[in-house]
């Protein structure tokens, strides 16, 4: 069975201007979320605060919960988990007695909905100091990951190709960021892990293409760069489509069956895989092609 015919010759590089336009639009969309939506919604991991997951054994609505817990905090966010009688309740860290929080919440819920009708399934409280530290750790983890990859790429391939790959990664990260900002999904530690995984996955894709380019450069020393790029992408296209498809299968399984934490994780991966595949073809290579004018790719 073959999905991509062996002699496919799509002129990816010749049509790169369309890709530039699309990439630019997507990046503007992602960045526009900052002035319009005011950044992503940070989870309590980064912003500090408390989050409680409650399961009811009857149907209740979010307003009723908010009313019942009013005495805890004015700024209560109550969110129903789709298709369940479970709720996520978020609030800022209570000033005092944070460790007694679950008792207080359980007490209030018992009063409002009757004893035994609700169960606190998890409680997370992160102080502002820890939140700040986790934020810093997140930023460092990302920068260090990118830095190590650049060094590895420069060493194994060429510096120019390394730059192309990093540009492509930053592009993907911005898109995932934009996705989270626009959908209002919560950005927490788990999502950060997903983003770094996306980095790993994307570099995978990019390296496969780069590897083929390196190989073809050796075979055809005189051929124009643009032809080599086109040939390399076409030759690896079948693998790219297959791998993306198969990885998508296992990620989609998590989207379908996972709990809400894993569903958001899976969403980050889905977006990351789609745009990672796109960018390893339409961002990384054209980027190297343009950079070649200033920083010629060594042959």
């Amino acid at each position: 069975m073959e999905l991509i015919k062996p002699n496919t010759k799509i002129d990816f590089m010749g049509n790169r201007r369309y890709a530039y336009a699309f990439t630019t639009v997507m990046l503007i969309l992602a960045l526009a979320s900052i002035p319009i939506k005011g950044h992503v919604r940070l989870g309590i991991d980064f912003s500090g605060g408390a989050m409680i997951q409650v399961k009811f054994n009857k149907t209740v609505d979010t307003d009723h919960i908010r009313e019942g817990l009013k005495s805890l905090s004015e700024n209560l966010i109550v969110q129903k988990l789709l298709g369940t009688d479970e709720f996520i309740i978020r609030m800022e860290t209570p000033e005092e007695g944070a460790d007694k929080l679950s008792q207080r919440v359980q007490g209030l819920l018992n009063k409002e909905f009757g004893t035994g009708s609700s169960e606190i399934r998890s409680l997370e409280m992160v102080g502002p100091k820890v939140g700040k530290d986790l934020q810093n750790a997140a930023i460092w983890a990302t920068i260090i990951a990118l830095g190590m990859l650049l060094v590895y790429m420069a060493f194994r391939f060429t510096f120019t190709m390394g730059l192309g790959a990093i540009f492509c990664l930053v592009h993907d990260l911005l898109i995932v960021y934009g996705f989270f900002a626009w959908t209002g999904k919560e950005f927490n530690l788990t999502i950060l892990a997903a983003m770094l995984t996306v980095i790993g996955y994307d570099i995978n894709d990019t390296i496969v293409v780069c590897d083929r380019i390196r190989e073809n450069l050796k075979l055809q020393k005189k051929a124009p760069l643009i032809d080599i790029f086109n040939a390399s992408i076409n030759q690896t296209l079948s693998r790219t489509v297959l791998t993306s498809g198969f990885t998508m299968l296992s990620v989609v399984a998590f989207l379908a069956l996972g709990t809400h934490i894993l569903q958001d994780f899976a969403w980050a991966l889905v977006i990351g895989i789609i745009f990672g595949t796109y960018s390893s073809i339409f961002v990384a290579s054209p980027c190297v092609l343009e950079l070649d004018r200033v920083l010629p790719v060594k042959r």
Partner: protein
Amino acid sequence: MIQSLQWRGAIIGVILVVSLFLVYPSLGPVPEFWAKHLPNNPVRLGLDLQGGLYLTLEVQSDLAVEALTDQTISEASALMKDASIRYSDVVRTSPTALSVYLKDPGQEPLFDEKVLDKLHSFKKVSSGAADKGFEIQLELDPKTVESIKQRAVRQAVDTIRNRVDQFGVAEPDVVVQGADRIVVQLPGLREDINRAIDIIKRTARLEFKLVDEKGDVAAAEKGDIPSGDELLYQLNRNPRTGVVTKSAFLVKKQILMTGDVITDAKVQPDRGGKMIIHIDLNRIGAQQFERITGEHVRERLAIILDNRVYSAPVIKDKISGGSAIIEGAFSPEEAHDLALVLRAGSLPAPVKILENRSVGPSLGDDSIRLGRNAIVLGMVLIVIGMAVYYKWSGMVANVALMMNLLLIFAVMVSPFLRATLTLPGLAGVALTIGMAIDANILIFERVREELRGGKSARAAMDTGYNKAFLTIIDTHVTNILAALPLIQFGTGPIKGFAVTLCIGLVVSLFTAFFVTRTIFDYAFQVKQIKSMSI
């Protein structure tokens, strides 16, 4: 070549058998002979998968420094009395500094000789005339401050370890993080989580002080506290009505004895059914206690825990023998918890909860079930897809894939690693499956290219493997590079994810290359096949 094939087969066989042995205990309870003689480490589940408690505490080590300074005040006063130095006051001016006011400036050399010399960690900063007399300013040197803080954190870790050991969870974990933070993990804690937190963060500082019988408690409650005294409260709960009342005590600030000398604490009901805590003291404590009770017969001794008076019995006679009792209106649980913290020792400084994550067991059960189903579903889809797309070669890749999954878990439970499986870790496994299959896809696509180029099946396979080799190394190494910062910076579940991902990648190198290649070589050499089903 045949020989090398046998060797490779043998290696794979051994690894398979060892892995099965390692993974078997995770699948369910093991038979008795197994538990006795064979490795029996079920996979360690993270807090998010089995429920439990995760706390980040901050040791307020500044307060430990302050306590030392306070202690020095009474020490200096005693020394000055002994040396007949006349002074008007000793006050703490900052957590690390204090001022002594002498009545006679001429006694400064005497002070230096008899007092300063004995206060090892304090240095004289300046001296000169002031409103309240001749002022000598003393300060702790920064190195001492640093070492007190470090010791406070180390002691706190030890104490908390002692305490959590008594909760009976399988693998409690207490570690220092950074300069003054302690991370406590209690996976599988199923009893009352709030009570556990109470026990962990309780300072449990036990002090014996004298009650100031002459002091006016009523005036003190209005704010007029005699110098050298402090106002503390006792809580009394009526056992029938449960109503709590407070009574005030005026006690002398001087600490006669602290709880450091306790060797054991037990709960015993007295004749009236009230709970009392019986404490045993070590040799030094027994001597101290004997001296104190001997010197203060017919006075009241307040037993104070964390600035709350528990009882204030009148000393009837000198008490020797090294034991004492604490009475108070506690419930059996309170008494039990109190005895526990007294046994485990006090925290050198109070701790503050910075982070608290607790997951109930029911959520953990749900998560693990859903996670497992998601992995199985993903696997089934991929296995079918590979078989359809690459036919027999796809089946070979599927064998490698199954082995990959088995090996990931085997490495995770292996005695060298004992890694923890977390919820994101399960997602890491799912993703690794995708990556592992990518290695085989890369190889197979190369083989197909070579076959289209007209090569024989055998040659096409060799070339395919060789050409894909470097690419696969590159993709795996870069992925590991991206996961490493997560191991370094991540906590709990995230770290679990990164570790799982790294293990998966290393394992996938082995299965995707070594295992599938061996199967193909076997097919070509032993079964003498002439064409590849790909």
